[in-house]
Each structure stands twice: as structure tokens, then as C-alpha cells.
């Protein structure tokens, strides 16, 4: 039997699971199992801290901030660092076996030319649809850092993808 509390929270999970899991899949470089473990812990932490949410930001922004903290905490664990050093280099950021168009492959290759922070900012801005100030909240960065990182990322990507974009 699911309590009222859990049922209500289940609605929130349904509504936001895709954003949180997408973000964590991005941070874990496509490790779906690890991303889902971290996403689960994100929602458990959110449930415990729900009364602390004051509505200063959008709910999904608050959730993504918790997810980012989960990821940072995971990286600090010694065992996790050892695994990452050996395994993450082998992980393809795009799920293996999927049939990607040439464009998607070029896009993926171009993103690999950026550093992790630049990719994260691009992901939050273009795929999660967050504003620059929301990204600053999620990553706990100064707004100016977000702006310069986003601009730098675009400048790096544009020549790499010029052949695909007729406008450039």
C-alpha cells in the first residue's frame, strides 16, 4: 500500500525523472546503471529535504542541483575514482548499438573536443532548457563563469560543426 506522501511524491518523480536521469547519464558519460543509482539517491534526498525547498528556483533546478551534488560526492569516493579512471575512458557517451546518423556521430565527436564542464553547461542549456542563472544555481558557479563557459563552448563547437549548419 502506497501512502499519500509516497503517492504524491511519485507524481513528482514521474514528472522529473527524465531530466534528472538525462543529466546524470551525461555526467556519468553514458553509464546508465550508475546514473540511475545516483538519480534514485537524488530523489530520496529530495524527499527527505522537501520541506527545505522554498521555491526560490524552479523545482527541476533544485533537483538537478541535488543530482550534481550526488555526482560530485560519488566522484570523491576512492573506489569510484578508481573505477572511473579505468572504465570511463572506454564508455561511449552515446549508447552502444544505437543507429546514429552521421550528424549525431559528428555532434558526439565534436562534443568530445570540449572539456567536461563545457559539455555540462551545453547539456543544461540546450537539452534541459535551463537559463544561465539556473545553470549557475545547479552547478553552484558564479553567473559570469556560466556565461563565459557557454560562449567558449559555442565558439569551439561552431567550426567543428560548420559543415552541418548552413547558416555558418
Amino acid at each position: 500500500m502506497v501512502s499519500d506522501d509516497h503517492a504524491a511524491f511519485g507524481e513528482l518523480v514521474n514528472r522529473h525523472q527524465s531530466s534528472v536521469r538525462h543529466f546524470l547519464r551525461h555526467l556519468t558519460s553514458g553509464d546508465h546503471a550508475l546514473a540511475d543509482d545516483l538519480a534514485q539517491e537524488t530523489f530520496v534526498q529530495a524527499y527527505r529535504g522537501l520541506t527545505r525547498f522554498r521555491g526560490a528556483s524552479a523545482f527541476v533546478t533544485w533537483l538537478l542541483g541535488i543530482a550534481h551534488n550526488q555526482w560530485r560526492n560519488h566522484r570523491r569516493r576512492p573506489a569510484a575514482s578508481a573505477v572511473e579512471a579505468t572504465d570511463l575512458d572506454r564508455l561511449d557517451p552515446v549508447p552502444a548499438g544505437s543507429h546514429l546518423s552521421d550528424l549525431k556521430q559528428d555532434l558526439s565527436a565534436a562534443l568530445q573536443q570540449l572539456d567536461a564542464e563545457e559539455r555540462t553547461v551545453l547539456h543544461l542549456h540546450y537539452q534541459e532548457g535551463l537559463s544561465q542563472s539556473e545553470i549557475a544555481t545547479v552547478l553552484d558557479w558564479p553567473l559570469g563563469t556560466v556565461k563565459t563557459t557557454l560562449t567558449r563552448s559555442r565558439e569551439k563547437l561552431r567550426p567543428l560543426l560548420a559543415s552541418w549548419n548552413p547558416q555558418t
Partner: protein
Amino acid sequence: MEPADLKSPSPDEASFEAWYRAHAARPPVPNQGFTVRVLAALPPPRKHASSQRGRFCLAGALLGGAIAWAGGLLEALGRPGIELEQAGAWSPAASPGLGLALGLVVVSLLYVHRDLLRRRIRVSFF
């Protein structure tokens, strides 16, 4: 002071942004039992003294409200020569005491169930 080029993207940047946004989009992640998994991992809902206190407050508020209402009704009926409808005994405004009691009932109910109401409002809002 922010550099001007960070505030408003040039036409080239806007075009690149639109192009990138269109092609980098990915479909939503299917739930596939993730919500069930999260709900199973949640700590059990709190059922302790506070919910018993809540029920006690609710019962007391309802009882108090009923007594106040009945008192107003009896008082109106006891007045010679005044019909029930004329006395307006059904209206809380007929007696300041009755209105106060009913107001207290409403406030008590809201107070007792504030956590539940807050969660419900959040769920529907978000």
C-alpha cells in the same frame, strides 16, 4: 560590467543556437519502473504522535464547532416571537461568538493538515 557580446547573441550565434538545439535534442528517458524503484527506496512515511495529535485536534475542532452552532440555534429558538428564519440562526454572522468558533474550526483544520496541504499544493503546482 558584462561584455556586450555575452548579453545578446549575434545573428550567427542565434542561428547556431537554434540549429544546435534542434539537432542535439534527445527523446525523454522512458520511466521503465524507475518511479517504483524510487518509491521502494523512500523512508517509510512518518506515522507517530503528530498524526494522533492531528486527529485529536480535528475531532475537538469539529465538536467545538458543532456545539457553538447548536448553541446559536437553541438561543434563536428560545426567543419568544422570533421565527427561526428571522433570527438568522443558520448564519454564522447572527452571533459573533458563533462566527468566531467557526473561524477557529477552519483555522484549526488548516493548521492540523498544513503539511498535507502544502505537499498537495506543491505536487499540483510543479
